[in-house]
């Protein structure tokens, strides 16, 4: 389990590091696979876990990366790469590390954390996702980081409570699936309408 967590964290770091959107697709797909593995391994196998794991695999490992991949293929090469990380992102990362340690320090005595290492990985992935969503400029990067945060959150739930209630788990998946579909569709339309995939250019509405 901890190894899965470590792998997932590394994939999250990979998401942050990579600027090529095609790599992003693979990283996301990898995260999806890891998550479904985690669902299957964290609890005794029942029909419910099998269904949840399968759904995770379908939505996070297949649907979302597939959608991104399909859209990307139709775009010219210039729109498939993100900008480099700005310098201030590194500063934010340091701050995030501080905040994470603060929270872990606070939560230590409460005994709510079941798997400390996994908890760290989860929190770190979430924060990497936050840094990424603020620092990256490609529309799809934002979507990818949103998914990555959600993935980290699932790991967080696992580290704290073993698993989320099935109802919530499935609801989350559906929500995320719809959200990702909508956003991929939207990024397509934004690309059509404005010939850009850079969120910086989305600043006409102001004041």
């Amino acid at each position, binding site marked *: 389990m901890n190894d899965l967590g470590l792998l997932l964290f590394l994939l999250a770091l990979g998401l942050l590091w990579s600027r090529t959107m095609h790599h992003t697709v693979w990283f996301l797909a990898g995260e999806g696979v890891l998550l479904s593995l985690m669902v299957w391994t964290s609890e005794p196998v029942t029909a419910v876990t099998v269904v949840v794991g399968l759904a995770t695999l379908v939505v996070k490992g297949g649907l979302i990366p597939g959608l991104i991949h399909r859209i990307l293929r139709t775009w010219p090469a210039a729109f498939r790469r993100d900008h480099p990380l700005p310098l201030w992102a590194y500063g934010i990362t340091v*701050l995030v590390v501080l905040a994470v340690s603060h*929270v872990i320090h606070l939560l230590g005595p409460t005994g709510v954390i079941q798997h400390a290492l996994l908890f760290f990985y989860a929190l770190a992935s979430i924060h990497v996702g936050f840094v990424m969503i603020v*620092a990256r400029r490609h529309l799809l990067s934002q979507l990818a980081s949103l998914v990555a945060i959600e993935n980290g959150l699932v790991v967080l739930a696992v580290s704290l409570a073993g698993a989320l209630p099935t109802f919530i788990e499935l609801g989350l998946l559906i929500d995320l699936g719809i959200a990702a579909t909508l956003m991929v569709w939207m990024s397509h339309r934004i690309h059509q309408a404005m010939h850009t995939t850079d969120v*910086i250019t989305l600043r*006409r509405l102001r004041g």
Partner: protein
Amino acid sequence: MVTGGLFTLGLMAVVAYRWPRWSLLLNLLLSLGAVAYGGYGLWHGSPTAGPGPLELSPLRAWFLMVLGLVASLSSWYRWGYHDDQVSLRLWLPLFLLSMMTVILANNLWVFMTGWESMTITSFFLVTTHHERPDVLKSGYIYLVMSQVSAMVILAGMLVMDTHLHSVDFSVWAQRGAALPRGTKSLIFGLLGLGFGMKSGVIPFHVWLPRAHPAAPAPVSSLMSGAMIKLGIFGMLQFLLFDLGPTARLWPLLVLAVGAVSSLLGVLYALMEHDLKRLLAYHSIENIGIILLGVGVMGVGIDWHHPAWVAVGLVAALFHTLNHAIFKSQLFLAAGAVEQHTGTLDVDHLGGLLRTIPGIALGFIAGSLAISGLPPFNGFVSEWLTFRGLVGLAHGTGLLALYGLGLIMVLGLTGALAGLCFVKASGVVFLGEPRQAGPRQPLPASLTGSVLGLAAISLILGVIPQPLLHLINGIDPAYRLSTEGLLLPVRTPIIGGLLVVGVAVFAGLSRVWDVRTVPRWSCGREADASMQYTSASFTKAIRTTFAVIYRPHRHVVRLGPGAPDFPTRLLYSGGTVPVWERYLYRPVYGFLWGMSRLSTRIQRGPVRLYLAYVLGTVGLMLALLH
């Protein structure tokens, strides 16, 4: 039940807005009903109000009577008024009803509802002529200032409510006096500020000279005659009657504010050449005079000096009534002048006494009254105000000197008011027309209502004693005895002898037996442009009070030979409105600046927005311990 009847009448008047005559008749009935109900309340009213939402007490009855009086005369006036528009017929009854609600309200919510309705209805009345330049701006300034005052009043009343655990005014009247001094001070500050803003005391007056002239004359007369008095009503009812003795600073502050308002009001009035703006500034002046009475009463309460309480209250109330009468008389006359000539610029008028003698008589009578000259009613109430201040000067030490200073200010104000109305009635009605133009004949109702008000003001100036008798029961705490107050002045003797004297001397000098000759103009053909204008008449005042006015003039010479041989001169000059320059414009600019600054939050980039969310969460986590 009476209240219900009045409200029904008012609503009927609103509904009947398509039928002018019916609407006017209902309006008149409503107003007369208010007078009757007010009179009834003064004669028979219980000294304290009951528990209902709308209750009559003697003080409220007095103001109701004032309101009804002005309203009925202005309804009569509207019968022949040319500008009696649909919006006027629609909003005016509502305006009246909301003012009645304010007066009769017996709990906070009813009061505030009435107060705000009063603002909005009068706002729509002010913007009747929205197509004219500056009217919208005036209306807007009026609306915003009123709202600020309403919020301040609400705050003050909520303090009262918080400490007395009741929104019922009758409870306030019973228990208000027992509040701790600090709380009283807070209430006094908030309510005093709020009511002061609504009555147009300086420096919160800027809305008044804008809003009053913008409205049609019957509305101006109601706003000036009745609406701004409700601020005084609020101060009397909540601050002096309910709270009782407060910190001594407050009444002295009221006196100072009154003095400043009266003096500056009349000074700014002098510089006006729009007749209705001039009258509006005089409203500020008269509010100042009323506040002097209110202040004397407050000082009397604080120093436990019943004589001062009596004279202060009587002066304030009586001047309220008188100002309502003569100011609406003057505003209505001004409206008639506008209907007659189409302009209100005094420098374009002149000689109207020959074309509208009735209005001229009414205006001159009103001028005499507002300048506080015998035998009109203004004389009586200004005399009483002086009398109250003399009472203060009667003491010792600095308070006495303060009193003397106030007397001097009031004296100066009176003299300036006299000067101003010599100017106003002289330039408009006497002499020769400065500009030729068509003159519309006036219907009888205009002249009738103006002269009717003049008659009332004359009667009150000669025999005010019955009304003073009515004031007796108004303050439940002090049970005033006002009978003897006017003994030294003996208005019937003064008035009577004055009339007899003028008649005798007029008879002796045989005023009818004269020959008309051309006037002397150093041997040249006399010409209308030789007359003094409003600006030249007040030149000396302008230079004397240059510190306040900050006059400026700018002359541009035009033509091929300029500057030595100009063919044309462009002259512009005026005075700097100090308050607007140093108080209102900075505040206004600051607000706009803040507003612009606040929209910088929403700059566009989505990453920034996300950073707000995550940053705030991070900050909260960092604060966690």
